[in-house]
């Protein structure tokens, strides 16, 4: 089995993908996990991966799909179990405002959080975000608009509370 392509993409794209999934997951360790899982699946389905027009986009879509299930309330137990057994991972060096932003993102519905993280934090164009989340461009734009409004309200609440 020839995994040279996967190895090359891993060297070129792994860190970037983790950065992109960080905003989606809200946790660096989880972002690392879903991206590693996506690469493992690329090896498992190596022929399909080779046929992908854009291997990095293929991996990103798989990773976003994997992260999606983590945020359904009924399976939070698995996430907690993994956290308990995983060695403490370092978190990015962010300003307090950005830490608050990531925390507020976690409060958004998954669909809004994904598009906000991928478009604004990962700097992906809307059509690539649409491909990653499997939704039409128009839907992504609507989620971006609603997500920004919800995010602004959450951050305003926090700001108000800190000055109280």
């Amino acid at each position: 089995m020839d995994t040279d392509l996967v190895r090359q993409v891993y060297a070129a794209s792994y860190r970037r993908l983790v950065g992109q999934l960080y905003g989606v997951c809200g946790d660096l360790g989880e972002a690392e996990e879903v991206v590693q899982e996506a690469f493992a699946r690329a090896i498992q389905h190596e022929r399909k991966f080779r046929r992908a027009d854009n291997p990095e986009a293929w991996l990103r879509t798989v990773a976003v799909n994997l992260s999606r299930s983590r945020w359904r309330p009924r399976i939070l137990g698995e996430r907690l179990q993994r956290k308990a057994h995983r060695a403490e991972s370092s978190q990015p060096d962010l300003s307090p405002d950005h830490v608050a932003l990531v925390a507020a993102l976690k409060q958004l519905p998954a669909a809004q959080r994904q598009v906000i993280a991928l478009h604004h934090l990962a700097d992906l164009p809307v059509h690539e975000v649409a491909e990653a989340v499997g939704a039409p461009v128009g839907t992504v734009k609507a989620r971006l608009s609603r997500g920004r409004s919800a995010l602004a309200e959450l951050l305003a609440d926090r700001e108000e509370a800190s000055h109280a």
Partner: protein
Amino acid sequence: MRDLDELLDPVVSRRASDAARTPDFAAVQRWGVQRRRRARVAAVGAVVAVVATASAVAVEVPSDRSDTAPAGVIEYEGPDGELARAIESGEAKLHDVYLGRNDSLLTVWRQRVSEPTRSDPGLRYGFTLNADGSARWSPARFDGVLVSELRAGSYLVQDGAHGVGDVARAVYVADVDGIRRLDVAETSADFSIRYDGFAKLSVDRRASSQVYAVDLETLTAWPVAEETDGAFLDIGTIGPTDDGGFWLVGEDRMTYLDGDGEQTRYRIAGMRDPSIHRLDAEVTRDGRPVSVWSDFSPGGLHDPHQLKVSTVRDGEVVTNHLGDVNYSELGSAALLPDGRLLVYAGETLLRTTDPRWRSVKDLGPVEWLPSSFYTLHEAAGEVCLAPIGVMGQQDRETRCSTDGQSWEPVDLTP
């Protein structure tokens, strides 16, 4: 704090990329190779199981993503069936647990059966039903399984649905008599007849979900009411009452639908954003609606919140303050057999001191819980704490209690 436009900055992703640990590729390669080998073994095993059982029981072969749902009755498998053997071998993972009010237990299992694609994760689901002292296994043929208890011991299983927003391919009634397909009607429910129960079904793409009245004699569900006020992030529980009416509890309101189909709505004051504030919506064993929620005011997201429980009594919304808790996205309630309410919110277990829920006692942390991701269920003559989405964690206990203080483990094996 800076303006939102300034905050939404790609520097967040760049910093995360810089901090990322990069495992050696060889480790990831080994992982992928192991997955490939396990998938081949599972595929061969599935073929062998199908050949072995085809002549024994009338079980349909799990199909690919076909929109043609099977009609009629699905036979339960026996202890030698595909799902039973997959559970025993570990190929099937524990996915979710539903405790019935008649001491029955429905357990959902998931199994990898094909290569994942963007639209299909390659998973199939089945369930086991423990009732009347016997175990029954469904085929592992469902694309997703969303379960609700229709009445004691009788469950509705939505095939293809994982949660709100999904549309089920088909709905089945599962009980000791079998797994029978439910016909979903388009005409409205006729309240001149009495129904076996009511359920929220996601079967219409045009609506986020609808409430249906279910008649088990004709295996038919009729639409009763449609949710139009925004999108539910969680499904509120619906329960029938003795007079034939039922409660619909969700978002920031509780709606009573009487035996003639007339609706009375009660809004819970103070719940600004139900998607964040509402922790649980239930109808208790004695027919009372309950909404457990966090009141964020005063203060913000990261300050201690007031944990509140709302119900309807004598035609009015009654809200009681149970105590101050740290923010948690989890919360559940269940009624003890003596009428006192048990509430679990993250790490805190509270029990009201009387059946009118006017005051509460903090029972303290539940010592046997390995994590806070547990939810309360009402079972026959007791309440149970079960893990939220066990996802293969076979060692995660479910325990039950009659008073909220002494907890006995439950055996979940089929």
